[in-house]
């Protein structure tokens, strides 16, 4: 049932508004205090440390306060997270390093084509609300494989669900730890590899002690930090430049100025008309097929990612689940509205202050990030003036004026470097670092929890030892959490590829592996266990094959589809196989059909209690 034995937190749930209000006020006061400290001459490095350590300490504190020994609290936060707060937590869960650090940078580089990410990462919530989440909530699962096992009868479906979950979550969490490493190495001045493990430690502190309950309340805290940190630099820039602190409305003008400058660069010979990709022109990087294919894969991936779906298991009712999806999307859209503005302001700033200036007079941030290997000029890392002068001279630019094609900025830098690019005080840069960490940590928390839950609940408890005691299950869950985290951190420290590609793969894998089984499982009673198993294997297998073979195996692209949209092949294959095999096998038993009827109807409480009882008699 939805009402759980009291975990000692009902006062807390009733006073959420007050508690987070005080928290937000305290955070604002902290930022102001640091701004004052900067004015009186406290060094930048100290400001950066204070920012990062204070916020991390708060998250860890929330995690420790929310520690729990109750199974339902550990797995689904006792199912009493109000819709609005679950929306905030889901937004933080959702917006990862890729959104916070990578999205604006991708828009900066790709222009219109980058909007595929903006569309793909928002529109999928319609599918979550309409097709999937309310039904999984009604069912009452602890994990997504739980649902697959009940609907498709047994261990094979559960095991496939775990494999899909593990592959996409592990790819995704590696990207988060990688992003944590980039931020921490820039702001704390430590080695990338060490930074990766420091970030990891914080993630573990938050999620290990209290499971879903701790992760929920830290994620709400992290949402507040990340959204404030994302908005403030652009709001200041918009106010400085156009006198109106609403960047989301004002960047239309910035776009027009960018288009004007592009024409001017071509006229002055700083860019060639052949290689210039006009910022506003569609389909310069992705052709329409790839553009719309990517949108589709990201949207369907949204409705299939276990760590996100799992968040919607925590609301008190099915009705709240639906509302909660709306709140999530609203909180997410606040950031996604702003990302294109971020990109446009950054682009304009770079066009006005870097392109067309003498190489002797480049701003100092070029070297700051050049030394991290993230900014290149004339093909060489911008480590020192002499180095890039020599590189530009040998590249055939003797006049020393920087042309458009000679500057190359890593896409992950744009957001982190923006405060410096715009010459804002260091306290803003520290704020952005804290926001970026909040974004990556909150997502990593959710992902690690999803993996550890699948391992402890689905594999250990359901398949290995069904008689394990509560204490033992939770101990196993925590132990596995640590092991998975260390594995992901090790992989991240080898710097496999860029953040955005890793994340896009995770979406494609989830879409092809989970979506057909989840949707047909709810909406089509005739879908059989054999059909689901065959469909998951076909869809997921083809997608995984395509990603691995095009990325590492030297295979050519099929129909020119990039591997970030790999589910474009796996998804239809999965659906066709699932439908065909279902029609060839006998229809599901009466019990399963009744189960489907029951899980469609909101009324009547969850179908399994504590993730392990039999379906209730109909």
């Amino acid at each position, binding site marked *: 049932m939805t009402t759980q034995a009291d975990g000692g937190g009902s006062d807390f749930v009733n006073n959420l508004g007050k508690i987070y209000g005080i928290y937000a006020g305290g955070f604002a006061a902290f930022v102001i205090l640091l701004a004052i400290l900067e004015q009186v001459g406290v060094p930048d490095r100290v400001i950066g440390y204070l920012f990062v350590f204070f916020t991390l300490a708060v998250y860890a504190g929330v995690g420790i306060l929310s520690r729990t020994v109750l199974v339902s609290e550990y797995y689904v936060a006792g199912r009493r997270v109000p819709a609005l707060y679950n929306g905030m937590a889901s937004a933080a869960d959702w917006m990862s390093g890729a959104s916070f650090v990578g999205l604006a940078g991708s828009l900066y580089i790709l222009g*219109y084509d980058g*909007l595929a990410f*903006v*569309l793909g990462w*928002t*529109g999928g*919530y*319609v*599918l979550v*609300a*309409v*097709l999937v989440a*309310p039904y999984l909530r009604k069912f009452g699962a602890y994990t997504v494989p739980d649902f697959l096992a009940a609907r498709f009868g047994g261990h094979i479906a559960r095991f496939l669900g775990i494999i899909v979950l593990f592959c996409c979550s592990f790819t995704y969490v590696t990207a988060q730890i990688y992003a944590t490493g980039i931020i921490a190495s820039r702001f704390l001045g430590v080695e990338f590899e060490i930074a990766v493990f420091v970030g990891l430690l914080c993630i573990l502190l938050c999620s290990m002690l209290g499971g879903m309950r701790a992760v929920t309340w830290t994620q709400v805290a992290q949402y507040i930090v990340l959204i404030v940190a994302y908005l403030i630099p652009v709001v200041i820039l918009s106010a400085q430049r156009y006198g109106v602190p609403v960047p*989301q*409305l*004002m960047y*239309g*003008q910035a*776009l*027009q100025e960018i288009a004007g400058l592009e024409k001017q660069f071509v006229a002055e010979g700083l860019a060639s008309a052949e290689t210039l990709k006009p910022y*506003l022109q*569609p389909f310069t990087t992705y052709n*329409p097929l790839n*553009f*719309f294919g990517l*949108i*589709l894969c990201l*949207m369907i991936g949204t409705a299939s990612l276990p760590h996100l779906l799992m968040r919607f298991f925590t609301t*008190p*009712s*099915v*009705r709240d689940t*639906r*509302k909660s*999806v*709306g709140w999530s*999307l*609203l909180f997410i*859209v606040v950031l*996604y*509205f702003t990302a*294109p503005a971020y990109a446009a302001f950054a682009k304009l700033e770079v066009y006005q202050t870097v392109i067309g200036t003498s190489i002797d007079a480049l701003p100092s941030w070029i070297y700051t990030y050049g030394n991290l290997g993230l900014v290149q000029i004339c093909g060489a890392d911008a480590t020192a003036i002499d180095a890039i002068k020599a590189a530009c001279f040998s590249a055939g630019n003797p006049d020393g004026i920087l042309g458009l094609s000679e500057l190359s900025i890593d896409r992950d830098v744009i957001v982190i470097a923006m405060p410096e690019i715009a010459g804002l005080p260091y306290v803003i840069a520290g704020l952005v670092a804290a926001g970026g960490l909040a974004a990556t940590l909150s997502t990593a928390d959710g992902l690690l929890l999803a993996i550890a839950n699948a391992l402890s609940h689905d594999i250990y408890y359901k398949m290995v030892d069904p008689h394990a005691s509560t204490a033992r299950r939770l101990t196993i869950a925590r132990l596995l959490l640590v092991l998975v985290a260390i594995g992901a951190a090790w992989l991240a420290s080898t710097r496999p590829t860029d953040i955005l590609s890793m994340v896009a793969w995770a979406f494609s894998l989830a879409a092809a592996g989970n979506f057909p089984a989840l949707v047909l499982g709810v*909406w089509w009673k005739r879908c059989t266990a054999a059909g689901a198993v065959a469909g998951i294997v076909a869809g997921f297998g083809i997608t995984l094959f395509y990603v691995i073979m095009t990325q590492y195996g030297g295979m050519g692209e099929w129909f020119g589809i990039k591997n970030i949209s790999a589910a474009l092949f796996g998804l239809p294959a999965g659906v066709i196989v699932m439908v065909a095999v279902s029609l060839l096998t006998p229809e599901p038993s009466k019990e399963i059909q*009744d189960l489907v*009827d*029951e899980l*469609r*109807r*909101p*009324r*009547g409480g969850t179908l399994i209690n504590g993730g392990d009882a039999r379906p209730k008699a*109909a």
Partner: protein
Amino acid sequence: MANGNDVSWWSRTKGLMITCLAIWAIFSFVIHFFVGGLNEITFLGFPLGYYMAAQGSLIVCVILVFWFSGRQDSIDREFGVAEDDY
């Protein structure tokens, strides 16, 4: 389980699902096929095609999810399959 009430409730639910997915498909895909033409129009200082992808479709999706959640709840209540209020 399947009585007349449930059958008509489910067909209304399916109808709502199809409506929502149609609106979703139009604003996620169809409208962006015409980005070139829409960009000829200026809206709030933006080329309209760009604006729709950067903000317009997002606004529609947020409204759509909240509208769906309200509609589905009233269908559930009408047929007596909604959860009790607490």
